[in-house]
């Protein structure tokens, strides 16, 4: 195990130690896990964590963990099994090549040349939004849209969000590009030190804008903002895109879709930060909302990070999701988080099932004007 010595890693160790002490062996965590195809037991994980001696099974499972938090919700003892998995990721003896690419092209201070090069390609890809990528002259504005690295996503949500803001006549600044990444992809690949570096850098960028409100359409970015605000005691308020738009909803005229639409819950927003409602309330303005899980917390993860570890596992989750949507009689599904959307986009397209990004749907539904 090689530690990078960051505060993040030290705090993870603290949480993991507490988990080791508090775990009473119910194994409910591993039964709840949506990607535990090898039926790994909790005792295997803890044995590796304590002894540092890895088995192939555990290594595969730790690599495939998508950090959905289902394990933690299921635990009778209050163990943060998801964080213990994160610590195991940080301890992994070797990591997939795709992960290395993944964390190298994000906003690392020691990879500036690589980032500049990938930005050139990225800007070409995103057209007019390109002007916001790693902007040098950020202005003071009370409203900040934070798109981070997902500006380069094929998602139409960033453009739709700005269209909505323009329709509402709002004045805003935009923070986007991999240099303003929230650091979550880094934690996910076990690079806690890089993650911390990036969150700290994000703080300096935000301070240039000195906003009152920061809006983001990515669940992980949102969690990053909540984390940063708690740490720094900053006065700005982080909002998810649905939370933000709901504040202005009455100023817009809404047209309803005539098909019922299922709602997908993002793990970070619903399970970890406990905010299942805004996305539902917004979708309810547009269409009849179809619940596909018993409760929002039971909604199964999009499995995004297995795009980088195990594609098959990723597809399996998507098949399950598509089956649920059909079973519940929804004609399409909506999600608020760009990561979830990216994960689902291809399989839903192949299956011919509409997949809505909430901001894109809202933009379409309010074309009637402000």
């Amino acid at each position, binding site marked *: 195990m090689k530690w990078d010595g960051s*505060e*993040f890693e*030290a*705090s*993870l160790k*603290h*949480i993991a*130690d507490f988990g*080791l*002490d*508090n*775990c*009473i*062996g*119910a*194994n409910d965590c591993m039964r709840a896990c949506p990607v535990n195809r090898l039926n790994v*037991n*909790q*005792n*295997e994980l*803890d*044995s590796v964590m*304590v*002894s540092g*001696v890895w*088995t192939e099974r555990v290594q595969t499972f730790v690599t495939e963990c998508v950090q959905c*938090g289902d394990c933690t919700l299921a635990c*009778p*003892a*209050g163990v*943060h099994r998801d*964080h213990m998995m*994160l610590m195991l990721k940080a301890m992994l003896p070797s990591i997939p090549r795709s992960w290395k690419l993944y964390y190298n092209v994000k906003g690392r201070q020691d990879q500036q040349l690589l980032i500049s090069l990938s930005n050139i390609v990225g800007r070409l890809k995103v057209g007019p939004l390109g002007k916001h990528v790693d902007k040098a002259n950020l202005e003071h504005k009370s409203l900040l849209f934070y798109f981070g690295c997902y500006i380069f996503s094929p998602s139409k949500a960033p453009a739709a969000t700005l269209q909505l803001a323009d329709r509402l006549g709002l004045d805003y600044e935009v923070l986007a590009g991999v240099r303003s990444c929230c650091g979550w992809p880094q934690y996910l690949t076990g690079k806690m030190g890089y993650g*911390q570096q990036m969150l700290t850098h994000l703080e300096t960028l935000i301070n240039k804008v000195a906003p009152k409100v920061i809006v983001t359409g990515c669940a992980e970015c949102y*969690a990053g903002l*909540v*984390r940063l605000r*708690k*740490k*720094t*005691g900053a006065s700005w308020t982080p909002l998810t895109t649905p939370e933000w738009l709901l504040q202005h909803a009455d100023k817009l005229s809404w047209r309803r879709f005539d098909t019922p639409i299922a709602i997908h819950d993002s793990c*970070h927003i619903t399970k*970890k*930060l*406990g905010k299942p409602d805004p996305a539902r309330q917004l979708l309810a303005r547009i269409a009849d909302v179809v619940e596909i899980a018993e409760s929002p917390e039971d909604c199964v993860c999009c499995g995004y990070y297995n795009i980088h570890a195990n594609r098959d596992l990723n597809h399996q989750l998507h098949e399950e999701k598509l089956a649920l949507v059909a079973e519940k009689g929804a004609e399409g599904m909506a999600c608020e988080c760009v990561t979830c959307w990216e994960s689902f986009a291809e399989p839903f397209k192949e299956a011919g099932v509409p997949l809505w990004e909430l901001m894109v749907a809202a933009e379409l539904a309010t074309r009637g004007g402000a």
Partner: protein
Amino acid sequence: MGTRYLIIGNGVAGITAAQEIRAHDPAGQITIIGDEGKPYYYRASLSEWIAEDSTTEQTYARTTGFYEAMRIENVTGRVDRIDAERKQVSLESGDQTPYDKLLIATGASPNAVPIAGLEDPMAYRTWDDARKIKEHVDPQTNVLILGGGVLGLELAGALVEIGTRNIAIVQLLDFLGPPLLDEHAGRWLERRIRADGLTLFLGDTVERVEGQVAHLKSGKTRDFDLFVQSVGVRPRYPEVPGLETGRAVRIDEHGATNLPDIYAAGDCTETCVRSQGRWQPTRIWLDCARQGRVAGCSMAGVDASLTEYPFLNASILYDIHYAYIGDPNAEGGVAHILENDRAYRKVRLVDGNLAGAMLMGDRRGMMPMYRAIGLPVAEYGDVIARSDFPWNDLTGKDWEYLFF
């Protein structure tokens, strides 16, 4: 030759100490003596095993190769005597084992109430107990559990899961679940258990047994095929001349006893609550593990001491997730209570500060609540009993609080 560490007791306190010793002293020789003939296992998962939710392997807390990977020698045997002067222990088999540092982590034994006519009373503590109970039950078995505390209820919950419904619980107090539950919470749970068809005898006890019939103090009778006593535990430890004990082995904040190079941890100990000037027995898994860590560090020469953490016990009561945080039954102050069919939540404030909480059914917010003990929360009023109260927003800016 490295330091010889000897640990008596292959439970959570003993193993956690061994792990800590290994982390700080790679060259030390670590030996654990246990008398159960089982690897380190989770007592709480015995219920999962009875309920057929967990396999035998899943009840073990570490994998087969663990002891070897950690270079821990695991000996099966019972320690009879500790000779603190000659620094050696004697086993029942007659073997002697010398040590440089010794840890007593021998846990506790179940209490047994003497009942006229009851031969060979069964208890619920060890793997052997679980196996015996399991051998005796099928869905038709008449089970009588003496004791309506957490453990008795946990056993009842496991038996219900495998279809056994002829279960009677006899409880001396007139409500279930003490000391974790107060009367109000006990009644909430009682309704739930009665709805499952179990029979409860509250404010009653078994006076004598004739054949397969229990005669209760109230004059009622109850047939049984299986009689299990679950009436608390008492600390268990070998005789050691000169060892300071109260109701259990007394340890200081470094896990040390009054005798040189002898440490203790877990259910066999009691610790001094300085602020209240009293000795408190150790009773829960988390505290056993924390004591094991501290004792292990001290034995390996690393400075560590027990912090007075707020109390935390979260687990399963009957079939319901509960959390007992801090002191929800503290004297004085105000309690905000939220109660419905699914949940019972009580949050107590003393002098306007969060003193503790008892949560059943719906435990949302429990971990941030645990971290918020002592914070002023009076301004929020009774909404703090609701499960959507944003506890996470109130607590800490240390990184350790920042993962969700």
